[in-house]
């Protein structure tokens, strides 16, 4: 599904990722954990294709295709989805309009028929019911006046509608209390599927109590320092990231 080889990424001349390797197979959930400033967000943004990140070496292969040079919308159409740490507010644009534009853009790209208003409403009703999300959230402007929890649930709803093969959850737990976290995790778990891989990026272990990963990687100083099973997260919770600071020092 996703294969990253010896990836080097610089932002404004300073190297953030320094030879990162990562392989995610279909249906797997991988957690990327690491201290602040280790390059977690850079990794998620660079996979999604954000401007401002310079790939100075290595490559990212998604479903057998190199992503380098591909526009973000093209990556989305090919099945990559990034759930933002801080979802953006867009006043004056209704959530439902936004979702329909996104879905139909992707369908257009893939050469599929666009959904008309009726088909879209029907599909949305199904998705919101599955995820227990109220219609009210669809009518409101994108993320405007949403609570932290609502914003993250909206990300999960977008994921459900766009149905990606690779979902990257960038610090989805940040700013959420435990109840909101459980609701969001429940949504994510409903979207687990043998065809969908997920990359869960987090600083804390607690999200992984609810979204159980197949593998846990520790990212520090721009590289994967260690890989293990879900028990690695518990170990990190106990010991912290000090060990990796020392390793690099």
């Amino acid at each position, binding site marked *: 599904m996703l294969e990253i080889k010896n990836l080097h990424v610089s932002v404004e001349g300073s190297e953030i990722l320094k030879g990162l390797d990562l392989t995610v197979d279909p249906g797997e959930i991988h957690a990327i954990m690491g201290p602040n400033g280790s390059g977690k967000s850079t990794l998620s943004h660079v996979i999604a294709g954000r401007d401002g990140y310079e790939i100075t070496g290595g490559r990212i292969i998604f479903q057998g295709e190199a992503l380098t040079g591909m526009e973000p919308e093209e990556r989305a159409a090919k099945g990559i989805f990034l759930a933002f740490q801080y979802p953006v507010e867009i006043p004056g644009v*209704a959530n439902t*309009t936004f979702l329909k534009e996104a879905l139909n853009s992707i369908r257009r790209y893939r050469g599929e028929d666009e959904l008309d208003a009726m088909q879209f409403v029907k599909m949305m009703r199904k998705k919101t019911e599955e995820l227990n999300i109220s219609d009210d959230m669809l009518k409101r402007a994108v993320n405007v006046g949403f609570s932290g929890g609502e914003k993250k649930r909206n990300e999960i709803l977008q994921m459900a509608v766009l149905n990606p093969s690779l979902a990257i959850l960038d610090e989805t737990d940040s700013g959420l209390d435990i109840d909101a976290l459980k609701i969001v995790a429940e949504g994510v778990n409903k979207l687990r599927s043998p065809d969908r891989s997920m990359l869960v990026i987090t600083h804390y272990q607690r999200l992984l109590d609810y979204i159980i990963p197949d593998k846990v990687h520790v990212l520090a100083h721009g590289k994967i320092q260690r890989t293990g099973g879900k028990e690695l997260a518990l170990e990190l919770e106990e010991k912290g990231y000090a060990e990796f600071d020392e390793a690099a020092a």
Partner: protein
Amino acid sequence: MTKTTSPLAFVDSFDDERTGLPGIDLPWLKTLRRDGIERFKGLGMPTPKLEAWKYTRLKPLEDTSFQPVTDEDGMAALDHVPSLLPDPGGRPRLVFVNGRMRPNFWIEGDLPDGVHLDCLRDVLLRAPDWAESYIGSLTGEDAAALVQLNTAMMDTGFALRVDPGVIVETPIEVVYIGGLTDRPVAYFPRNLIVLGEGAQATVVKHHVGMGVGAYFANAVTEIDIAQGARLNHYEVQAESRDATHLGAVNVRVAKDATYDSFTLSIGGRLSRNEVSVRLEGQGAHAGVNGAYLMRGSEHCDNTTRIEHLAPNTSCREIFKGVLDDQSRAVFQGRIVVNREAQGTDGHQLCKTLLLSTGAEIDAKPELEIYADDVKCSHGATTGQIDETALFYLRSRGIPEALARNLLVQSFLGEALEEIADENIREAFTNKVLHWLPAACFLSEEWRDA
């Protein structure tokens, strides 16, 4: 080949008995015109030496020798009327082409009793005394040069009079079509809107260019709103890209009356909308709003003056602009609060989105406050498309051009929301959407947002 240095050479040979001028047999109007031309000659065309014209230069006009319109210009072939609102149906509509009223496109509509809508020529014939009491009453003798010019040259326009207590539900549309001539022309609309006590009306003006040539429109609108009355005054300036549009609106708002306006500027090589509102009675309110969308080398100037002259008056002023390419815009918003105007509540905001590094805005908010008990806020900001928001939309599969459009639409939403009438808000939003680049991506649902 002769070359002239004055853009309005015919002003020098001003003739108040020129055939075709409305009301040539009215002595008072003749005097008014003569005074106007004398004052205009004394003042001359505005230059950047005047504070109010520091950012807008009329010099480019000098390259063109404009001629007065003739009846023939007014009869230019027209296969459709660019109405702002879909399907006029029973809606009243007046249509002018190059300053000439076209009776065949006039829809009288189902206006209630007590509403009088005429073109200037007819009102000077039918109600000269009424016209005399209003024309020039709001602009005053010491009006600026371009108003004086209009007073001298007024050759077209409309008059709307709504009797006390009469409520007009349907919007009245006035379409001014420019262009469609083979030489540069100038025309001078003079409009009057007078609402009696407690009356209500909505007027939509559509200035639109249909040809390709240069023309010059110098419009003045005088508006008198009596106690408890309400006027919704909406305007779209969509002149052609070689056109010059200089408009002035002078408004008097009485006790507990409301003037609510929105001006959308999406065309013209050079345009200026000058609005002056006097809140003369307690509880009077003015909403002076607008949006400007410019590209190429277009220049748009919104200059407003809102005077609070009585206690507990309020105003709200929201202007939003989107500038692309090498376009320029000017916003000069002055709010004056007189000593008597205690309890004034004023809010002014001007925000501009620059889509190109070559675009430029000069924003000058000015508050002049002489009363103590006043709540007044103002702000002016300039920015670019938010890159994070752009990435957010694109990461959802929305192509860049469409994503930019959504963000521009989102930006303008705050201003368009000021339009109280839902149908008109939709029509204006539509205009905005079709202005945007990559409008081909538009889907109907955008309007629901």
